């Protein structure tokens, strides 16, 4: 059906979206590149001239750089693992016939509607606070010493908060995928006397492959730039400084736009490395 005519029409129809996104990508990118080669200190007179790769060298040689890369990857990896594993379990559970399925489903997806800032504030103050938090009360009730979550296990705490926000997303996609699974296939396996674990491993899980890919892809895009949760909870202390938080510190706290821009370029490189991995995966698994 792809005639010459429809091809050119198709191109026309794609043009606005492509042009807009190209602009949205290129304009900031070029400006970031431009600033990254400048000594640009807003509080010391602004543009202080070209300085070559100094900003790039300085950004990487800072002791905070590698820890920030690893914190970013830990948060992304941690949240992905938790949401996918729990998401599969929850989806399996929600797939069972139960009373009030609609309401339970509403309860499970609710966290997705909560602004990241709000959820971070609520978790930080009302749950994880070592004196007034609900967890502290719970711990004391069982005679245990309350945990200062955000200082003792800061990265895990943040992973937990972010996972709570993204779990509904994963669950729903996986649930829809499970619901589309051919029940005859399962029943046949059941007849053959395949144990439940085997049934899950050989029939359910392969069927979910595509859905899991989608979860991983979409979440990674959002998780790479997690910012609000860290800004609200630890402000980058205790090893929770992600790459985007480090850039924030360089640009806004240290008021060094050049240095921060160089960091931005590194973040783009990191995102692209992750993207290449993802696209390999997607190419195989997602028939886009």
């Amino acid at each position, binding site marked *: 059906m792809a005639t010459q005519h429809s091809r050119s029409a198709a191109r026309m129809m794609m043009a606005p979206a492509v042009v807009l996104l190209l602009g949205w990508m290129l304009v900031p990118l070029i400006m970031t590149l431009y600033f990254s080669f400048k000594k640009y*200190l*807003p*509080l*010391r*007179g*602004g543009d202080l001239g070209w300085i070559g790769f100094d900003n790039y060298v*300085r950004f990487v*040689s*800072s*002791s*905070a750089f590698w820890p920030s890369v690893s914190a970013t990857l830990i948060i992304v990896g941690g949240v992905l693992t938790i949401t996918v594993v729990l998401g599969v379990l929850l989806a399996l559970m929600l797939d069972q016939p139960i009373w009030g399925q609609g309401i339970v489903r509403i309860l499970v997806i609710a966290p997705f509607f909560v602004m990241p800032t709000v959820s971070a504030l609520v978790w930080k103050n009302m749950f994880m*606070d*070592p*004196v*007034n938090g609900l967890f502290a009360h719970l711990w004391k009730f069982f005679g245990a*010493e*309350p945990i*200062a*979550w*955000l*200082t*003792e296990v800061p990265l895990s705490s943040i992973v937990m908060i972010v996972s709570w926000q993204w779990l509904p997303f994963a669950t729903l996609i996986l649930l829809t995928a499970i619901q589309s699974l051919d029940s005859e296939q399962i029943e046949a396996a059941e007849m053959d006397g395949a144990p439940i674990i085997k049934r899950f491993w050989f029939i359910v899980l392969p069927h979910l492959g595509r859905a899991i890919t989608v979860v991983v892809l979409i979440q990674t895009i959002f998780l790479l730039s997690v910012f609000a949760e860290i*800004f609200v909870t*630890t*402000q*980058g*202390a*205790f*090893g929770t*400084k992600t790459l985007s938080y480090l850039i924030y*510190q*360089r640009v*806004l*706290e*240290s*008021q*060094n736009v050049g*240095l921060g821009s160089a960091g931005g370029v590194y973040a783009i490189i990191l995102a692209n490395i992750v993207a290449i991995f993802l696209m390999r995966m997607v190419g195989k698994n997602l028939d886009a």
Partner: protein
Amino acid sequence: MNNALRAATALTLIAAGGAYADTITIATVNNGDMVRMQGLTEDFTKKTGHTVEWVTLEENVLRQRVTTDISTNGGQFDIMTIGMYETPIWAQNGWLVELDDLPESYDVDDILPAMRGGLSYDNTLYAAPFYGESSMIMYRTDLMEKAGLEMPESPSWDFIVDAANKMTDKENEIYGICLRGKAGWGENMAFLTATSNAFGARWFDENWQAQFDTEEWANTLNFYVDLMTEAGPPGASNNGFNENLSLFQQGKCGMWIDATVAASFVTNPDDSTVADKVGFALAPNTGLGKNSNWLWAWALAIPAGTDNEDAAKQFIEWATSKEYIELVAENEGWANVPPGARKSLYENENYQAVPFSDMTLKSILSADPLNPTVESVPYVGVQFVAIPEFAGFATEVGQEFSAALAGQQTVEEALEKAQALTTDAMEAAGY
């Protein structure tokens, strides 16, 4: 009739070329005193005809917002709420409107000299203090008595350690001392820098070389970490001003060394369970001639280039005037007026009756931003160093110290990292 008259006047004024009713946008922090000011805006509108749009934000967000705006000349705000740290730096860049033409009735000489000095650049005032503060000890008189001790007016750090240990009763969730541990240049570093002054330490020597490798800093930080481990609340490394305030109000702290403005919150029976059991003393020292107290003011400044400069000036005159203080006193009582900005407030008999007024004034007067340390330094500022890069590297240093308090690294490691990253940041800044 009244309205018609008003409208007529307005028309005449507009015809005469004077903008009668402007709308000004003010960025401010969500502290209690500012929220109160927001509530009283009507009085300003009634007096001048100008209306006000408030942008009230949490401190960190506010800073991020106003700094971006002013350094790009964004022009989003007619008045910004800034502190003693930003004022001289911004003024030097020519970003702020000079406040040198305030009317006689404003009585600019009534502003406490320490505040006026800290908010001036080249002897010109660039921001008017809305309220000012130093830091002091707030302590529980009942617990002090129970410990069998008596708080001197100007205690030593040794006495504080002794008292903190005796007051601590972890079983009942009473912690001898609550201090800031949350990382940030305006959080733990404000406290620790002020404390280090009493221990004879300093950020930089005369040649701008970072000083974290000195004995004095090791003493300061070791002392702080030991004290907090023994007698501090759990999770102290995430406690800033607000967290400690709430702990103290709940009766969980024996002593708290923090901003003098907190005194009105901890003695307010509506919010505080210990309102009638609070005593005050000067921030501690080690006998080297400097107390561990800081000096700060939240002030109102006008960004250069705003279209509503006149209206903005009128607002500043209103909000930082003697009349405003009386207005608050009328509505909320004398204990709740914005403190620390004007001499006349401390000469007022009504205010002298407020339990913390005397100690607040003494604390403010004992801070000297021009000579903050035992040995001489090239910078201005008691708990900060008034250079543009400070906020950035001090926050990072604060994170290292906070991690040391949390037990994630040793004091030596924290100091080593602090030294390295400060040196690096100073190099990047061109020192």
